[in-house]
C-alpha cells in the first residue's frame, strides 16, 4: 500500500494544479491571458504551464480583455476549451460586452447547437491593500446574466475540484478567485483531490443550531471566525459555503435555514443590488414559516471600493457579523 503525503498547499497552487491536470488530460484545453505565459501570471497561478505545454497552449496575449475573451469565443466555436485569465476584477470590464452579448447566450441563440465551454478566471475582492480598481466584487453583474455559471471556491480542495469541473463544463463559467485567499493553506493531497463537488452544490462548513450564516469566497474564513467567537455568547452558528452562486443550491441553503430558523447572508460586495438580496428573497420565499426573524445581510457599504487605508472599515468583519446575529433575537413588532 502506498502512503500518500498530505502536504500544505496554497489555494493558488491548487488552481495551477487543476489547470495543469486539465491540460494534460485534454489537448483541447488552452490557457490565455495577459502575462500568463513567461511570467506565470501576476499571481503566479499559471506558473509552469507555458513551460510544460508550450506557448500555443498557454499564451501571452496582447493587452486587450475584449480581444482575449472574444478570441476565446472563436476558439471554443472551433472545439477548444479556453481558460481565460483576467488580471484583476476591474480589468475584466472591457470584456463585459463579449461576456454578456455572446459568451452567455451562444447556446441559447443557437438552440443548443453551439455551446461555449469557456472558463473565465477572475481574481476578485478586497483585503489585500490593492490600489483603485484592484479590489472589486463584481459577482452580482455576472449573476444577473443568464447563461453564465458563477463559481467561487474558498478552500484549497474546492479550488482544485471546482476549477476542474468548470473547465469540464460545456457551459461558460465565470470562476471568481478570492485573491486574498490565494496564499491560504490547507493540508491537501493533490494525488487524491477528495470528492470533487459538482457545480451548484453548497456545503455546510460548520454545523450549528442557533442561526445560519450563508457566505462564499473571501468571507468564508471571516464567518468561521465569527462562529467561533459567537460561542462565547452562547450562539451555536452554522456556516454554509455556497461555492456556486449560479446555479444556486436552494436545497442545501433552505435545509440549513429550516434547521436554525435564522439566517444572515455575508459578503463583501455591496448590499444594495448585491447577491445577498437575491439570497434573502429566495430564503424568504421558501422558508417563510420556518423563520424566527427576517433574513439579514452583512455586506460591504454601497460605495465605490475604498482606498486600502480605509478598506477595513468597509469589509464585513467578525463584529459586524456578530452584531447582526444579535439582531436575530427579533421579536414580532420590534
Amino acid at each position: 500500500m502506498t502512503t500518500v503525503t498530505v502536504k500544505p498547499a496554497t489555494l493558488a497552487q491548487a488552481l495551477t494544479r487543476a489547470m495543469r491536470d486539465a491540460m494534460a488530460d485534454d489537448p483541447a484545453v488552452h490557457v490565455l491571458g495577459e502575462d500568463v505565459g513567461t511570467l506565470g501570471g501576476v499571481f503566479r497561478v499559471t506558473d509552469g504551464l507555458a513551460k510544460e505545454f508550450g506557448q500555443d497552449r498557454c499564451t501571452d496575449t496582447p493587452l486587450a480583455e475584449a480581444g482575449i475573451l472574444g478570441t476565446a469565443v472563436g476558439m471554443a466555436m472551433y472545439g477548444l476549451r479556453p481558460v481565460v485569465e483576467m488580471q484583476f476584477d476591474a480589468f475584466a470590464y472591457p470584456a463585459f460586452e463579449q461576456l454578456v452579448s455572446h459568451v452567455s447566450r451562444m447556446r441559447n441563440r443557437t438552440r443548443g447547437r453551439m455551446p461555449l465551454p469557456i472558463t473565465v478566471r477572475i481574481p476578485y475582492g478586497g483585503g489585500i491593500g490593492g490600489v483603485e480598481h484592484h479590489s472589486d466584487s463584481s459577482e452580482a453583474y455576472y449573476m444577473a446574466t443568464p447563461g453564465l455559471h458563477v463559481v467561487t471556491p474558498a478552500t484549497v480542495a474546492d479550488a482544485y475540484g471546482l476549477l476542474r469541473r468548470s473547465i469540464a463544463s460545456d457551459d461558460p463559467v465565470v470562476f471568481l478567485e478570492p485573491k486574498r485567499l490565494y496564499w491560504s493553506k490547507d493540508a491537501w493531497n493533490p494525488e487524491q483531490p477528495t470528492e470533487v463537488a459538482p457545480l451548484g452544490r453548497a456545503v455546510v462548513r460548520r454545523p450549528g443550531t442557533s442561526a445560519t450564516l450563508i457566505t462564499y469566497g473571501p468571507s468564508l474564513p471571516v464567518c468561521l471566525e465569527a462562529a467561533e467567537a459567537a460561542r462565547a455568547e452562547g450562539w451555536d452558528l452554522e456556516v454554509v459555503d455556497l461555492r456556486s452562486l449560479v446555479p444556486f443550491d436552494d436545497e442545501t441553503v433552505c435545509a440549513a435555514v429550516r434547521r436554525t430558523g435564522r439566517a444572515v447572508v455575508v459578503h463583501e460586495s455591496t448590499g444594495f443590488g448585491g447577491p445577498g438580496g437575491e439570497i434573502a428573497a429566495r430564503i424568504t420565499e421558501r422558508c417563510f414559516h420556518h423563520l424566527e426573524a427576517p433574513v439579514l445581510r452583512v455586506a460591504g457599504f454601497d460605495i465605490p471600493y475604498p482606498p486600502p487605508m480605509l478598506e477595513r472599515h468597509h469589509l464585513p468583519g467578525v463584529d459586524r457579523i456578530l452584531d447582526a446575529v444579535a439582531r436575530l433575537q427579533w421579536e414580532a413588532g420590534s
Partner: protein
Amino acid sequence: MTVLEQRGAYRPSPPPAWQPRTDPAPLLPDAEPYRVLGTESAAGTDPGLLLRLYAQLVRGRRYNTQATALTKQGRLAVYPSSTGQEACQIGAALALEERDWLFPSYRDTLAVIARGVDPVEALTLLRGDWHSGYDPCAHRVAPLSTPLATQLPHAVGLAHAARLKGDDVVALAMVGDGGTSEGDFHEALNFAAVWQAPVVFLVQNNGFAISVPLAKQTAAPSLAHKAVGYGMPGRLVDGNDAAAVHQVLGEAVRHARAGGGPTLVEAVTYRLDAHTNADDATRYREDAEVAAWRAHDPVELLERELTARGLLDEAGIEAARKDAETMAASLRERMNRDPEPDPMALFDHVYAENTAQLREQRALLRAELEAEREPSGGPGEEPGAREGGAR
C-alpha cells in the same frame, strides 16, 4: 448597378471642411526615432530650455528612487517606477501651456508633478489614502488612470468640447505600449481623427507590458505607424532624448492648437526598473538588455550634451543634485507621517446628496468607530449601531 457602382457611393461627396486623405505618405513616421542630443540640430536648441529640462530630469530620477524607497518602508502600497522614462514624461509635460490638459496613466507621476501638482498629492493613489490626491481642475490634470487606455477617449472628449467652446486648449493623453492593444485606444484615435480634435497621443514604448515584450503586443513596424490608418500623422522619437521629445511634442501641440488635428507620437524608451516593486523582472528579461539601455540613460544623455556645449559644469551638476535632494528630503519627511484618512469620508462623495441608505450606513460606521474609541460602552449599547445596522 450595385451600390458600389453608384457614383460617389464609395467616397461620398465630402462636406467642404472634410478632406479625405488620398496619400498616406505624409502621415508615416520616420524609420528611425527622431534625435536631437548629440546631433547637429542640438546646436539650435535653446540653452535655457535644455537646462530647465535637465533640472527636472534630475529631480524626476530622484523622485523615482525616493518613491521606490518609500515602498520598501511600507509608505506606499505600490510604486510603478518611471526610471529611464523621465525624458518622455517631462519633455512632454513641459510642451504644454498652462491652459492645456494632461491625461496621465498610472506610471506618469513625473508628468503630473511637472504640471505643478504637489509631489505628495501625486502619490496619494499609490499610498492608498484616497483614489486621487489632487484637484484635476486646478492643475488641468485628470486623475491617474489605472484601467489602461480608458483615459484616452476622455482626452478626446475634453479637447473636442474645448474647441466647441472656442478655447484653444490642447489635451495630451499618455498611454503605454501595452495599452495600445486595448479597444479604447482604437476608439479614441478614431474619434480624434474624425473630429479633428486637438489631442496629442503619447505612447511611451518602454519595451514591456509587465512581462510581455512589444513583439507580442503588435506586429506593426512601429506603434507610430498605427496613426496612418486613422488619418493622423505618426511621429517616432527617441524617448530618452528630452530635447527631441520636447520638440516633437511641441510641434504636435502647436499643430493641434492651430486646428490641424491629432498626432500620435511614439517615444521609444525603456523601463529600467521592474514593472512595480511587486514584480520580478528577472523572470522575463536579461540583465544584458537592461545594461545596454542604462548606457543610453536620459539624464546622462542630456548631461553630456550640456557639458560638451559648456552650459553645465561640476558646480551646475552639483546644484541640480542638491535641488533634487531637497525635494526628496521634503517628500520623505512628508510621506513619513502617518496619513489619517477619515473613515467617515467614505460616504462623503458617492453622490452630490447622500441617499437614505448611505446615511444609514454612515451612522452604523460612526457608532462602530465610537465604540472602538470607548471600549467600555461595548457595541451592544450603541443605539445607532442597532438601527443603522439594519442592512
